[in-house]
């Protein structure tokens, strides 16, 4: 009787055990083991992720708390009270200048060449100190 390939495959035996069953068992074993390894790794990662998420949540709470505390400490009313207690106040308009006005506030000092002939005493070589801000900037309001 002629047997088809499937029948031949099922008829292939060793010690009255079909090879197809042996191969199937080995495959199933390999699959079970790989699933176990994958699940174990996933469980480990899940625990790590859970831990990280808890830490993130805790840190987020701390950030919120610190942000609220910073907002409380930096509120304008409190800062102004502290500044006034320290003798500070808003800067007057005539004491304010932008970058473009800086050159006008302080004259550009031209470097003076040292004389070739006998050097003058060191004290005379020091240029006079000019106030950084012109007198006009000190006009009281």
């Amino acid at each position, binding site marked *: 009787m002629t047997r088809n390939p499937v029948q031949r495959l099922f008829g292939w035996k060793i010690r009255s055990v079909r090879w197809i069953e042996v191969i199937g068992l080995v495959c199933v074993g390999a699959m079970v083991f790989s699933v176990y390894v994958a699940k174990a790794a996933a469980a480990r990662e899940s625990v790590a992720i859970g831990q990280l998420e808890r830490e993130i949540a805790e840190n987020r709470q701390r950030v919120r708390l610190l942000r609220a505390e910073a*907002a409380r400490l930096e*509120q304008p009313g409190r800062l102004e009270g502290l500044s006034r207690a320290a003798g500070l106040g808003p800067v007057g308009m005539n004491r304010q200048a932008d970058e473009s006005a800086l050159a006008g506030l302080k004259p550009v000092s031209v470097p003076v060449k040292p004389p070739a002939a006998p050097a003058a005493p060191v004290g005379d070589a020091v240029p006079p100190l000019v106030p950084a801000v012109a007198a006009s900037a000190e006009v009281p309001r």
Partner: protein
Amino acid sequence: MSVEDHRVWRPSAPPVRSGGRPLTSTVSPWLRWATEAVWFVEHAFERARADARPEEDTRVRIFLIQIVFAGVFVFLAIGAAHAALLTARGSAGAAAVSGALQRADLTDRNGQLLATNITHYGLYVDPAEVWDREAALTQIRRALPDVPESRLRRILNGDRRLIVAPGLTPSERQAVHALALGGVSFEPEDRRVYPLNRSGAHVIGTADTGGQGVSGAALAFNDEIRTAGAQARDFALSIDLRVQGVLENELAATATEAGAKGAVGVVADARTGEILGMASWPAYDANRRGSASDDASLNRVTSAHYEMGSVFKTFTVAAALETGLADLDTMIDASEAYMIGNRRISDFHATNKILSLEDVYLHSSNIGTSRLAVEMGADTMRRYFQSLGLLDAAPIELRESARPRRPRDWSDSTRASLSFGYGIMITPLQMTAATVALVNGGLYRPLSLRRGGTGDQGRRVVSTGTSAAMRQLMRANVLRGSGGQADAAGLRVGGKTGSANKLVDGRYDPSRGVGSFAAVFPTDGPETTRRYVVFVLIDEPSQGSRLGGAIAAPVVGRVADRIAGFLGVTRRADPPILAGVAR
């Protein structure tokens, strides 16, 4: 009798629709097909025996079962692989956004925190686990002095676990935790916290423990704040905390010094209608709203009504200019008191001469504006007051925005009173909105606490020419009129003072007054220039002058001086065009 041959499975013919057909064919031909297929498998043993091949029966059954199982497993494997590898990240089982909150953090326009949710803790005590109840009571009271002793004692002597105190801050929780008492436990609870305490309390508003807004922006934007919270986003208001701080500090300093009953300040962007600062004095601690007095919790900007006095002359003059009733050079007789029936209208700063319209404004002549109002007619005046929003609640998101107390009639006498700010009580927010419309080129837009404004194009109430003329008049009033103390150096501030007595027991009491100043800066430049409207009102100052030019204008000047840098307003000398206006 007939014998069915089960060796051959023949799919049945399509069901014939007749009265006696079986249930399967009635329900579905496929169900009938499946039934017959199962029946075919069940009879496999009989067929094999009939064919003298009994061993094949078992094989066929096993093979079929294997096929079914293999199919199911393949299906499951494909499904699992698809779920594991191809599902978009975050879509499966991630309904809640990471960091989602019941209510979003409220910030100012620059991201500075105004309100947030902080986890607090409820303190619970289970008396069955407390070793020494007296010691526990003493120690808990020492750590939390606010906890009532009677309540704590009742719980400690009770027989079940009860809450002792809700809303412990993390530091309070730590203090109790450090006592290492048995039977003490904590349960987290989300609480709304206002880190600025009093600053911006009225405009920020509060939310209840259920996470619903009950006042201010918290109520006005309740749904949007909750939606933003669910998406872990912040919700930004139009408020600039720096401007708000300056406004509150200057207002509180002046109100305290003057012994005032209350004070109001608003700063608005005239181009977009955004509110940059809104202060009502006295204020309350938003974290203790329950203990705030009615006087402190009242947002005077939105809910208090005032007869504001001469600041209304701006509207009267604008209406006269817009209707063509007068121009800046029109001469108006203010040489003697103006009589309407038996009523005599005179000037506070009497000049006793014929004045131009500009001088009427600069000298704040009641006679002059009364003559304009009477000539204007009731319909015209009502139309302009209506279009400037003086007869309706100010359009803004805040629910507290109150309706004005409108005049009962529009007779000559009433119109004369209205022309200099009597006979009508409006809210400071209405005054701000109307001033914004007059100085921004003539467009009335809703004010907004939303960053970026409402985007509303607004409606035109006066022409750009009238708007420019009003800005020039307001600037001239600061340079040469009653608003001199508002002149912040280089900021081209313009404005109009207002001083009014309050109606007490049917009579205007000169000892109870309201001083106000409505200002804009800068007044020069094209229509598209960014301008800012500042309105300040001091309610019943008890010391010093009660005039708006003496008490409110200096506040505006200092506020403008300090916030100009934040708002990017460049300081420069007045443009020469104003010399022309001065004639």
